[in-house]
């Protein structure tokens, strides 16, 4: 027979939420006064991941090392968001594989000519000769700076 049991709340471990954040519509609970005009809108707080990541399966983060992209706003120590699903086109900032290293530059792709361009006049373009294959790893879609 199951008898109701007295449960001492404080003696139980508190379950800890470690999963995805849960978004709760921000309703005003008080019914006594004037209803909140926001009640008709289900609210969801801005999530930076949603804004910065369009293709979660194809998105990776990389740490920038070097100063050749400073005029494009990409500085030493920044984190860039790299999306492998985006098509590399002329003018896009990309991550390319050069001599076994990841390199971040602007892609120049015009009139059959392929280059990787820096965004700093102190640095030179990386030029590719006929027959050389440029491997673009992904396209940089944003840059994160933490102060």
């Amino acid at each position, binding site marked *: 027979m199951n008898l109701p049991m007295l449960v001492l709340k404080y003696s139980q*471990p508190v379950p800890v939420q470690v999963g995805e954040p849960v978004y709760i519509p921000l309703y005003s609970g008080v019914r006594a006064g004037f209803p909140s005009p926001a009640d008709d809108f289900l609210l969801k707080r801005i999530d930076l991941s949603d804004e910065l990541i369009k293709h979660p399966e194809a998105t990776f983060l990389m740490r920038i090392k070097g100063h050749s992209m400073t005029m494009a706003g990409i500085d030493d120590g920044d984190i860039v968001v790299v999306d492998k699903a985006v098509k590399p086109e002329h003018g896009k900032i990309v991550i390319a594989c050069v001599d076994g290293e990841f390199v971040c530059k602007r892609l120049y792709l015009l009139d059959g000519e392929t280059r990787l361009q820096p965004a700093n006049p102190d640095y030179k373009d990386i030029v590719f000769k006929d027959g050389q294959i440029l491997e673009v790893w992904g396209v940089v879609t944003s840059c994160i700076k933490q102060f």
Partner: protein
Amino acid sequence: MFALIDGNNFYCSCERIFQPRLQKVPLVVLSNNDGCAIARSEEAKALGIKMGQPWFQIKHLEQSAGLVSLSPNFPLYGDMSLRMMRLASELGDKQEIYSIDECFIGLQGISNVTHRASEIRARILQWTGIPTCIGIGHTKTLAKLANHIAKDADRKPGSYPSRLAQVCNLAELNERQRQFLFETTDVGEVWGIGGQISQQLKQARINTVKDFMQCNPATIRKRFSVTLERTWRELHGQSCIALEEIPSPRKEIAHTRTFGQPVRNLAPLIEAVTEFTSRAAEKLRKQQSKASSILVFIHTSKHRSGPQYARSITIPVVRPASDTKSLLNAALRGLKKIYKPGFDLTKAGIVLMDLTNAQTRQAELDFGETESDSNERLMHAIDEINDRFGRGTIMYGSAGVGSEKKVWTMNQQRRTPSYTTTLGEIPTALT
């Protein structure tokens, strides 16, 4: 209709995504403690390296052939697997994740399957960098066989027609083409026909898939098993094995490890067995099972000289349990029984066995709260704390504490960074 998608040389492919310099280089990933090869790139296979071959036997290839070896990076493989599986699921309406690098997809009502499969394959490659092969057939066994054909046609030119490379759909071939493939494929390649059965079949002159398919199913059942008869039916297009979307709870949970260096004394063994049991018990509680017995084993290495020793023992647990304390008591009792000094032990492990559903409880007279009730709450608290603050935040004292480095812990000298799961370890891009 079913598809089987799997990642080519999955662990090696994951490593290459983040280390472009490893493209085209013979590459192996070694087991925990760098014992033996558990993944090989095509170039490493070409050097004659076998699956599971001990590292010391192939180490010389580092110098002579430029072989690169890596310790396994499971956080990386796990994340890349999730990405691949998510994209693969878009091929059909149902998905069964069969292992870290392969999944079955149910294709009910999907039209233009082959074309769709090629596009999904291209997307997985473009978005994640993982090359895959896709096999399609009317049953899971046929999908698996088609996958084998797609893979071999891709990496061994001449083995199968090249248009079957990467994506092979057995269902869209005509009877003559299918018969040709069954004739030229070894019966041992069929899913469910392991080494031993394949040997027995070959003694009976059943060498190819076609030979096997021409057997009488009743004879197969009589001489072998119902399971093998089911394989026969699946090859003939009768679907007998359904998709399992929700993995069934595991029937055994094992935790074993090869030590970083040989262990002679009891104290480090107690530490190791305590940690193995704690981790296995945690998994047991996650799947809401209880174990009725626990097996403990220790042994020396076959590959080393010196006196050999190997013992195992199964200790019953008084009452099916999932709490670390009861299981640990049993495990340590077992360990002390089988331990003998004077041997260089290289491996130990525990296996939780006879798992039952946690809800099933033997009826007992009990008055008030039993010890096991309070234990359950204690275990819940420990699991939550360890989930939140990291593994090993709270552990049993016999697991060993303090700054002294455990002698038996993992030896992972060549592990690459957790590129996608730890912010401090993301790859660097030079500008």
